[in-house]
């Protein structure tokens, strides 16, 4: 059978299998350079260079939402999505790397931290703070992981439709959801188990290149099919002009009513059913700046920050962050806008009854691009999904191993080799549980939980920022901040019927605004009325002439000192 005889579903399977094998191969290669030490497995012995760090950070922060969510949201609400999410993220992510990432990297290098909790325990002289933070961080990370597993299983089933009609009869020939999710989990598990954070960084570099190229290639191909970008935009001006701006005037509403009436009277003559105008909220647009603050508290991002060989290796990541986010988002947003009004051969590309925003990009690519590009789109979606999921699994393994096992068992209880094994076993358990939950909750509104996870992580930002920049912040202040944020988060979350309905807006403000405000106010007030931290701690974290690791290493850090022994 030649390649030209394959149907689109089989082409997709071929590309996906090839892609998965490439990931396994990279995992295999990374195994040869892995040292079985905690520091090498979880932070690549702090040895990654500028390009690998940039690729890893982009791969980790860009989820499937950057590809299919952005185009779907643009189709639904127009150009506002770019300013609300992409350009804000470009500014704020870079700020987080500069203000938070650099400092945490330096503390991590000096004192041997591998996890956030080690830093918090040390900074606030509190062992129990770790016990408060551990379940919160894990609890916020798990739904984020589930997003990835569910997305991958769904995407595989969608793009392989009709591939093997005799074999997968129940799904019309598509690779079933359970199998797609299983294969994704197995491949991710293999390469993180084989190569640790170094293996995931290599894989993420490949994955980031794929979805950087993919959006641009898809945008170019689709615009060519529609008669060029100018004509594609003219179609939007004619049928859905409000998707090209953010306000909706009385004239816009009148035009919409007129076009809708014309469509209802004669759908064939009107061709495109006009989409209801969407007015963007200015307050919501501004307060979306709080959401990307969440990256500062992502455990998996913290882990990648620690992999940098030196502080200077952050420079490319800081500069490249806004630019690469733009390269990924802009083409997808433009495709989403074109999709509202695209006509080919006298027919709308997106049928009028179509109602799934996340399906817009796969559908327009399927209709206007080659099966190969469709299959590569699927690979791009997996790249986006897996490059976040792998780092999250690894971060969970690291937290369990370092913050619970090594911390409470004592520095001499386990060898590095044993700790890495414990980490691997825990990751295996987390992957299994995530897979089972993804099977059980496939039809749930787990996607709505994503924004609640981001809000939760963002609400921990004030405590982290104060820990680095405010000498006066105290342990009770941090407890109060975390508990206040949790209380407001739970209150607003139950108001949204636990993620089933849209985010509740109060005075036009998003929930994260209130959660963030509560966390900040509690942090400042309680810190000011409680006893300041010890002088030794202040000197340790605020004196630029810091002594080196050995002088300050606590029990858990000593484990890591041993871990880095191979490289020192």
């Amino acid at each position, binding site marked *: 059978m030649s390649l030209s005889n394959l149907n689109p579903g089989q082409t997709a399977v071929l590309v996906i299998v090839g892609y998965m094998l490439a990931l396994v191969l990279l995992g295999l290669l990374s195994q040869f350079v892995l040292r079985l030490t905690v520091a090498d497995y979880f932070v690549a012995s702090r040895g990654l260079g500028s390009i690998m760090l940039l690729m890893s950070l982009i791969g980790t922060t860009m989820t499937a939402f950057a590809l299919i969510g952005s185009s779907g949201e643009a189709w639904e609400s127009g150009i506002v999505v770019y300013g609300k999410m992409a350009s804000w993220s470009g500014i704020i992510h870079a700020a987080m790397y500069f203000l938070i990432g650099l400092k945490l990297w330096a503390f991590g290098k000096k004192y041997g931290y591998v996890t956030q909790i080690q830093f918090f325990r040390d900074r606030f002289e509190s062992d129990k703070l770790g016990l408060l933070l551990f379940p919160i961080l894990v609890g916020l990370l798990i739904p984020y992981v589930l997003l990835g597993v569910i997305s991958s299983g769904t995407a595989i089933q969608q793009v392989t439709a009709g591939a093997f009609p005799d074999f997968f009869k129940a799904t019309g020939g598509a690779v079933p959801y359970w199998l797609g999710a299983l294969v994704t989990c197995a491949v991710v598990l293999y390469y993180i188990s084989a190569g640790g954070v170094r293996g995931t960084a290599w894989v993420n570099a490949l994955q980031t290149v794929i979805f950087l190229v993919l959006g641009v290639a898809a945008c170019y191909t689709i615009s060519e099919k529609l008669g060029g970008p100018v004509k594609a*935009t003219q179609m939007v001006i004619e049928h859905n002009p409000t998707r090209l701006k953010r306000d909706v005037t009385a004239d816009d509403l009148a035009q919409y009513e007129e076009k809708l009436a014309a469509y209802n009277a004669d759908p064939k003559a009107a061709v495109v059913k006009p989409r209801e105008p969407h007015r963007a909220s200015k307050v919501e647009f501004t307060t979306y700046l709080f959401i990307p603050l969440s990256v500062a508290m992502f455990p998996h991002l913290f882990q990648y920050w620690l992999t940098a060989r030196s502080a200077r290796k952050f420079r490319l990541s800081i500069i490249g962050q806004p630019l690469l986010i733009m390269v990924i988002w802009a083409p997808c947003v433009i495709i989403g806008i074109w999709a509202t009004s695209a006509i080919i051969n006298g027919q709308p590309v997106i049928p009028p009854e179509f109602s799934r925003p996340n399906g817009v990009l796969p559908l327009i690519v399927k209709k206007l691009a080659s099966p190969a590009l469709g299959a590569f789109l699927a690979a791009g979606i997996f790249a986006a999904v897996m490059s976040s999921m792998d780092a999250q699994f690894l971060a969970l393994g690291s937290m369990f191993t370092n913050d619970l096992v090594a911390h409470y068992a004592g520095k001499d209880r386990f060898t590095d080799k044993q700790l890495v094994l414990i980490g691997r076993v825990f990751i295996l358990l987390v992957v299994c549980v995530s897979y089972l939950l993804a099977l059980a909750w496939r039809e749930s509104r787990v996607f709505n939980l994503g924004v609640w996870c981001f809000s939760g992580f963002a609400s921990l930002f004030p405590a982290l920022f104060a820990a680095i920049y405010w000498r006066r912040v105290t342990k009770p202040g941090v407890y109060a901040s975390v508990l206040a944020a949790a209380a407001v988060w739970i209150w607003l979350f139950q108001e949204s019927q636990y993620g089933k309905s849209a985010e509740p807006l109060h005075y036009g403000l998003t929930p994260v605004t209130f959660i963030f405000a509560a966390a900040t106010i509690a942090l400042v007030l309680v810190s000011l009325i409680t006893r300041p931290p010890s002088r030794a701690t202040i000197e340790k974290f605020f004196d630029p002439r810091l002594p080196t690791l050995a002088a300050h290493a606590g029990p858990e850090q000593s484990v890591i000192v041993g871990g880095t022994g191979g490289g020192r």
Partner: protein
Amino acid sequence: MKKVVIALLILLAVLHQDFWLWNRIEPLVLGFIPIGLAYQIGVSIAAGILWALAVHYCWPADVDVPDEPSTPPAPGASHARSH
């Protein structure tokens, strides 16, 4: 220069709120990108440039911990500290 870069970054965050373009489609940049989207793409590019200036002029002095050369794995290193 450090203060100028910080001021420019704050100004960029303020200019991100392009409410004066809220109801405009034209001019279409390159003939197909509505002005509101083109402006926000410009914000992303400006952010890249400003962060490059920040990295150059505002680099914190206390983060440059001396590099440790990344040595290749020594023979038997994977068995380090094994019992």
